[in-house]
């Protein structure tokens, strides 16, 4: 199904489509896509249906990344460490969707515990891009992106710590939206790095993203970082962007900043420039800004240090004692060691070692605390820019989804382009990726980021651009 949420709503309400049949369609499609793309950890054969006539999401099927705790349903974090774990409570967003009558039809695969950007470290195997099975879907929310791009479900839940919703959205040609930090509660979501972790959504239109976020946002007594009640976003989407001011970063999106740009990058930037022209036609001003290259180069290491440090601590709860398969050993230390040695993939272990190293007393000042300072410098820089601009527009990636063999050597400032979406996580800024077009038959997205709690503005800019770009997400058969 490639219909949007409103269209499906109409069909369900008019009786043309039955909730049960729609759920069954989603289950069947999940199985079909899974055989190709390996997108799911769990496909729920007989999804629970409990309608709520008052909600627009009633009867709408969806997929959730396997980091969301689902009561009575396997929740693995895509890790062997939790391969048989069945939670006895729902994540707040899952229980909100349950109340609204949405139908969970699958749990999608992701990089192990969300630590990764390729979708290749899931315990169930690599996730493949629906446009080209030899390519990544992006990560970490790989399976959710595939589910929406392949028309399995109209929306899916993901999480975004560095770009884990917005990057796969770019590679899969769909909308990936990570609202302001705290807008959507995180209780019950398996953590990666709590100060950077966001719940995000995948849809095939900006409006659908607003609809889904409206039904899961809001304060939560179980999450102290959750924001107080805010106005619904959907009613405020009017596409009126006349006079809005956007900036882009010359060092990232100006081809002259690159010494020896690849063909793909040239095409990407050309596409970006076309979109800027369209934005101008819509009445927006788009102005290049310059940011110290050193600060831009610091984004990736800053992200690495902070995310690994927090991950080391957050993943300490996995000991295999209370839950998870018990490790072998003659005492508790040996048991924990055995469990973690076998449960975690080598990629995770590497990150945990880095995290532990940067937090050590003798290293903390030099690495962790300096990273926190640089993070603040980056936030300050963007907040300063946001006093003059409504949004920051950028490419969501330097090109289409990479091949699995990963031969493409990335140049240093191209590396900035591949990692700069983490700015949105540093500052908790609302950030959305929408499809921009195709390069070498692969989708690529652009990203709009705005100031904290200015989600309406960010969505409206995306909404206006989306209309004009005339390419809506979804893999059309």
């Amino acid at each position, binding site marked *: 199904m490639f219909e949007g949420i409103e269209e499906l709503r109409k069909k369900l309400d008019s009786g043309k489509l039955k909730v049960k049949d729609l759920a069954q369609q989603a289950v069947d499609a999940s199985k079909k896509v899974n055989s190709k793309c390996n997108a799911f950890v769990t496909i729920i054969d007989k999804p629970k249906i409990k309608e709520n006539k008052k909600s627009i999401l009633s009867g709408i099927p969806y997929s959730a990344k396997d*980091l*969301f*705790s689902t009561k009575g349903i396997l*929740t693995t*974090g895509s890790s062997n460490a*939790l391969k048989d*774990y069945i*939670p*006895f*409570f729902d*994540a707040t967003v899952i229980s909100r969707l349950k109340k609204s009558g949405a139908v969970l039809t699958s749990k999608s695969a992701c990089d192990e515990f969300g630590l990764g950007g390729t979708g290749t470290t899931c315990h169930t195997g690599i996730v493949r891009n629906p446009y080209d099975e030899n390519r990544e879907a992006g990560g970490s929310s790989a399976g959710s992106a595939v589910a929406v791009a392949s028309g399995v479900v109209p929306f899916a839940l993901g999480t975004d710590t560095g770009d884990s919703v917005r990057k796969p959205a770019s590679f899969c040609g769909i909308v990936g939206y990570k609202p302001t930090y705290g807008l959507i509660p*995180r*209780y*019950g*979501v*398996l*953590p990666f*790095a*709590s*100060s950077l972790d966001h719940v995000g959504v995948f849809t095939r239109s900006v409006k659908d993203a607003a609809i889904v976020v409206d039904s899961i946002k809001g304060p939560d*007594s*179980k*999450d*102290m*970082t959750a924001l107080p009640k805010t106005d619904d976003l959907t009613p405020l989407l009017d596409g009126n962007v006349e006079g809005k001011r956007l900036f882009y970063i010359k060092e990232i999106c100006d081809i002259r900043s690159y010494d020896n740009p690849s063909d793909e990058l040239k095409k990407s930037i050309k596409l970006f420039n076309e979109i800027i022209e369209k934005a101008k036609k819509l009445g927006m001003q788009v102005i290049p800004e310059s940011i110290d290259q050193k600060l831009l180069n610091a984004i990736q290491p800053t992200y690495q240090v902070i995310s690994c*440090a*927090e991950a*080391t*601590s957050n*993943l*300490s*709860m*996995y*000991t295999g*004692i*209370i*839950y998870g398969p018990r490790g072998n050993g003659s005492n*508790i*230390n040996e048991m*924990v060691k055995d469990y973690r040695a076998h449960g975690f993939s080598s990629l995770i272990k590497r990150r945990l070692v880095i995290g*532990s190293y940067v*937090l*050590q*007393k003798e290293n*903390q000042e030099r690495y*962790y605390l300096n990273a926190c300072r640089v993070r603040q410098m980056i936030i300050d820089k963007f907040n300063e820019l946001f006093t003059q601009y409504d949004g920051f527009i950028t490419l969501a990636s330097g090109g289409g989804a990479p091949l699995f063999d990963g031969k493409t050597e990335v140049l240093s400032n191209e590396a900035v382009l591949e990692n700069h979406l983490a700015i949105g996580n540093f500052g908790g800024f609302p950030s959305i990726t929408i499809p921009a077009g195709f390069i070498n038959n692969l989708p690529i997205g652009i990203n709009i980021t705005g100031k904290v709690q200015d989600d309406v503005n960010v969505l409206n800019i995306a909404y206006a651009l989306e209309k004009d770009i005339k390419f809506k997400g979804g893999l059309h058969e």
Partner: protein
Amino acid sequence: MSKYEVVIGLEIHAAVLSNTKVFSPSKNSYSDVPNENINEIDLSFPGIMPSLNKEAVRKALKMSMVLGCVQPDELMFDRKNYYYPDLPKGFQITQVTKPVGINGKVELYVDNHDFTVNIHDIHLEEDTASMDHYDYYTLIDYNRAGTPLVEIVTEPCIHSGEEAVAFLEFLANSLRYCNVSDADMKKGHLRCDVNINLKNENGEFITPRVEIKNVGSISYVLDAVNYEVARQIKAYETGIEELVQETRRFDEATKTTIRMRTKEDAVDYKYFVEPNIPRIKIDKSWLKEIRKEIPSLPNERLKRYIKEYSLSESEAKTLVKDFELSNYYEECIKIGINPKVAFNWLSTNIIGYLNKEFMTIRDFYITPNYLKFIVDKINSGEISSKQGKELFNYCLEEKEEPSILMKKHNLKQMDNSNELEGIIDNILKNNLKLIEDYHNGKTNLFGFFIGEVMKQTKGKANPVIAKQILTDKLK
């Protein structure tokens, strides 16, 4: 001993009273049933997040004020990362960056001298699960996991076991006065780590710091300090034992300290700011409100009782250690009972009665006002002290106001001079030989005559008037 200066720092954990745990809505109460007061947060299931208990914060801030600390402008928490089976998250949420209190100061009094304890900080944190170790296995009970604790860390500024005990008594009493903790060491509400080392006459440290973990009672703290000081002196002077920075435990049976681990095994806790609890501004008016709830504190009371009410240190301690009893005493003084008289009533009559009846002063029938009535009647001579005691007992037996019972039991001294004169004349008439002896120098017979008067009046004669008449008659 005088060659060395003992330097002691204390780290005390106090279990905070609250309805729910500090970061989870589970009940915070002792249960005999293991793993009864738990939820997914206490067991640290994937995806859980902390939600801070305001009542625990309020109480921690209150103790911060009691200890004369500076309160922060905002609340912040940190993670202390380490693996132990009693710590399900793999980290403890505590406070390092901005504790609820820093730089405090408490003025205390012990053995006729004033001394000051400087407080490094007080912070709010979560407790661990409790474990029972058996030969081949260990049982873990998560009821205690996540219950609120305040940890109080003093500067190394305490110079004797007696001072350490005085501070601990003050702390335990204050915790109870402010309803922050039951502070019963035997029940584990209060756990104390003692850091000790020695300085020479030039003020230089001559022994490395030794930490004695989890000393189980206030009197054991004294024992532990005494043993450890003697051990360090002996080791320093004789060199028979190597002194290293280490952690030891106190063995209650032998009253000695035993090595647990040395500095090399110290854990790096990799502290960092807890990202799941946003910084929360502390409202000044809230602090003011909390400060208002603090009663006059045990150290202030102790000193006042000794200096102003002339009680001995041990008498004063008897009152101060029980908040309600001390409040009763203060009320007695406020309404005008002489402090010494009030103490005597409490120590000779009231405390004994309460202990016998397993009662607290809160349920005691005789209010300070009733007690004042009795004391006033004795002072004015309307009743004798013996009758006063009788009236006190009638009150307790009949649960009736003393003014009514005094009439009912006809408790009243005979102070009619004519009547008394008749009785005295009669006594003297029957004891002419003794009068002669009296005049010949046996003046202690005066007491005999008074005794006779009391006997014949069944104790009701006003002794002052009776003495006056007798003196006149025997001239």
